[in-house]
């Protein structure tokens, strides 16, 4: 779609501010806000509604490119909380519009320097960490895990750029492999040959890496005869499962997040957790595993009206309203860990608060990312939990960095680390 395709939505935004707050029926008076952007920067432009206005203003040539426009567009995690909140009662596409606006900027050569540098490195090294390609598979040393090139694997495990290069998080990927192996599965990895998914670049407005990596991954998986692709990274999961569909390049394999896979294994009696993990934890829904993980629903058609002005779509369009995100699986896994108690935060699932790392914010505006993470840590601490548990290495990095910077005392874990402890 093009930015122009959202003109009707822009005109029909009611400036109601629903995109700034948790749904009325779910709202917690102490933690009402769901949009980090407006919560941090205050002016209406820094909200989904405000960006609809910016879009209309841009399309009608009231404003052109400027540092301020880019500031408004990019100080947003594309976390999708606004989208679910708006669509609770409406049929507009704020998230799609904001994503498209960025692509429009990039096509016109209007880029954020921090992102441009990162994409340059991605083109050379196939990762979003600005690291040389070599050593990507080091995290798996000593695990005795097969490579995809060797073939004959039941499950392919994709670590993703963050887990592969952030050595402090290697334990997460290693735990995942060991848990899968404990269930008797033959796991394969791409190792040094693993590639970026292209998802984070896509969110920054760069479209071509996503298409390129979709083709590459499809080839590799097909060559290895893989039927199931498991990942620990919510961003990779989102790219593989949703974005590749969106651009018409599905992978052709079953894409599963590791928490979903472990949940399935446990339900099938193939994995049992026996060791007590006496902790009280709270769960942070990664945006890309929660509300944004709702399957892509392709739609092409046009607007039609009945009763004179009631707006329908022909053919009918099913809106992605955050109903089918992956919310239950990680919680079910946690609930099965002996001795562990799960307490919920105020903002969860469809109206969960972002960790701060999404949408290229971590790379371009680290202080905003840290501020956003700090809000989440405070909310988590308010539950009285010992630890905040999540299921994405980008969330973990953002939250852990913020604990270090701000002296917050709560521990941060990945679900799979606790599963591993409980084996």
């Amino acid at each position: 779609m093009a930015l122009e395709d959202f003109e009707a939505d822009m005109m029909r935004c009611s400036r109601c501010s629903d995109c700034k707050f948790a749904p009325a029926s779910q709202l917690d008076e102490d933690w009402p806000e769901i949009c980090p952007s407006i919560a941090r920067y205050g002016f209406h432009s820094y909200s989904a509604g405000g960006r609809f206005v910016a879009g209309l203003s841009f399309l009608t040539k009231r404003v052109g490119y400027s540092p301020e426009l880019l500031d408004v567009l990019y100080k947003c995690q594309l976390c999708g909380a606004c989208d679910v909140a708006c669509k609770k009662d409406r049929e507009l596409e704020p998230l799609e519009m904001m994503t498209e606006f960025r692509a429009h900027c990039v096509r016109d050569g209007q880029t954020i320097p921090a992102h441009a540098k990162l994409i340059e490195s991605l083109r050379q090294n196939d990762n979003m960490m600005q690291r040389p390609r070599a050593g990507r598979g080091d995290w798996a040393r000593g695990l005795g895990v097969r490579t995809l090139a060797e073939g004959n694997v039941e499950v392919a495990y994709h670590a993703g750029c963050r887990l592969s290069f952030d050595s402090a998080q290697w334990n997460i990927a290693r735990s995942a492999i060991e848990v899968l192996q404990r269930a008797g599965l033959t796991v394969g990895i791409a190792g040094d040959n693993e590639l970026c998914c292209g998802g984070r670049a896509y969110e920054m407005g760069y479209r071509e890496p996503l298409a390129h990596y979709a083709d590459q991954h499809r080839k590799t998986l097909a060559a290895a005869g893989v039927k199931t692709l498991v990942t620990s990274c919510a961003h990779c999961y989102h790219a593989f499962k949703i974005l590749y569909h969106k651009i018409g390049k599905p992978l052709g394999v079953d894409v599963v997040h590791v928490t979903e896979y472990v949940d399935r294994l446990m339900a099938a009696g193939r994995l049992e957790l026996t060791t007590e993990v006496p902790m009280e934890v709270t769960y942070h829904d990664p945006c890309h595993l929660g509300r944004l993980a709702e399957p892509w629903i392709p739609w092409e058609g046009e607007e039609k009206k009945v009763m004179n002005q009631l707006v329908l779509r022909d053919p009918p369009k099913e809106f992605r309203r955050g109903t089918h995100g992956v919310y239950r699986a990680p919680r079910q896994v946690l609930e099965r860990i002996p001795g562990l108690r799960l307490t919920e935060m105020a903002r969860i699932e469809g109206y969960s608060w972002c960790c701060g790392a999404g949408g290229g914010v971590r790379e371009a505006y680290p202080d905003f990312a840290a501020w956003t993470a700090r809000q989440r840590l405070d909310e988590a601490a308010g539950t009285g939990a010992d630890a905040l548990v999540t299921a994405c290495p980008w969330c973990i990095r953002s939250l852990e960095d913020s604990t270090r910077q701000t002296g917050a005392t709560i521990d941060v874990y990945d679900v799979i680390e606790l599963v591993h402890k409980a084996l």
Partner: protein
Amino acid sequence: MALSRDAYVALRDVVGHEFISDDPVILDSYSFYFLSELITALGHGGEKKFIPRPAAVLLPENTVQVQEIVRVCNRKGLRFHAFSTGVVCEGGEDRIQIDLRRMNRIVDIDAKNKIAVIEPYVSNARLFHAAIKKGLRAHVHAAGANTSPLASATSVGGEGPDNPSAGYSSRNVLGVEWVLPTGELLQLGALGAGAGWFCGDGPGPSLRGMMRGVFGAFGGLGVFTRVAVKLYPWHGPAVFKGHGLPPTYDGELPANMRCFFAGFPTSDQMYDAVNAVWEEGIAHTFNRMPRSFLCYAMSDSNEAAWELWQSGLLDRELTNGISLILAGHSPAELDYKEKVLHEILRRTGGRLAETLQQEPRLALGVLRTSILSDHVFRGVSRPSGGILEGYYLNESVDVSRLSHDASYAHTKTYTDQGICIDNGETNWGTFSDIAYLSEQIPHFDPRDEKSVQGMLDLLATSYQKQFETRSGAGLFANIGALMNDTFGPMLSNVHVWKKKIKKAFDPNTACDPMGYAFPED
């Protein structure tokens, strides 16, 4: 018009550089609001969806900063316009806008005296969830869960389906902290005598009539920074949250609340029932509901609403329909109210809607819409993007009877031309301690030029018609400086008084007069 450097610096020094902007990208988001396309189409400047761009926007943190901003405006010959959540962020060229977003504290919930003290950016939903923890609730106006009870109490409108048990906003406002257009701070009611927030009319100055009257001054008389509102008993649990998933979270109606839907063979019978329900004082919330509105509210999508509409269920069960929630302190009280309702229906020929009565999710939806202002935009903006009020009255039920058919007949000339949604019916309504409120709400599409122009015509002709037939006064007839000379003479010369008040309160016309009145010459 751009701010002079000197003025910009003076304002920046009040709020800090992070909280002021004069950049066009930021300012455009303050030139756009619900219905702004109608304002520009009326020829008041701007283009399409954009009213004229303000000169700057500021985000003050507290009352002292608001006072300082206002004083700078008076000194530098600038105009300001303040708002709370900004669903209606009017303003215009050479004005600065004061966005009160950072003033978002629930200052106090005094359960003993049933008072909540709040700042402008506290939303209906936030106040609701805070108050019910103490077994109380505030009146909720039906402009959406995330609009401001302070704005409703001090500055604009104030009706909602809980009017029958919690009153219209103007009746609920107690102490007020008011930054006058000169920058002075005025405290109304008991607050002004240092006696706390408990009473809006004294000891101390009572200016509620001037502050807002029935409709409010729409930001034309300064800035309200804190307000106390009355709280009422809440019959539900201390935590009233849904479960399940978006877009409609499941939940249960509290045990001592019951929801009823009823239809009537004729609108006259329906109004007889409205009168009786009002007189008996049984309603916790009340809605006179066009069938199409219920379709929007109870469905997750326009597609589902259309299917429901086509099914004919609502035609069968809810023609001339009403819905209401009854609540009781005890099961016996609730049983009594239900008996009264059945008796009213028996006498007036009403019938409970059999199928709808069996829908617990629908009952929950009605409760949430009525006491939380939740899902309001399903009915307001999802169908076609825009709504307008044509016929509007706050009067006796009998006057409303007059308006009911007349307003539909009037609208029909426009629906026949395809300008607005044709729902075969009209007029939403509820009642309060003041009067029965009846609003004719046609839906139009803001991006359809013909629809917009047609609505403007509908507005003008329906206002004229209402005055001619004495069946009401259009909502906007008494709102905004531009309407004063046209409609003031038909409304007891209210515009003359508004001009006098404006002159007395705002000698430099520093506060934007457009939402209220220009001062007396």
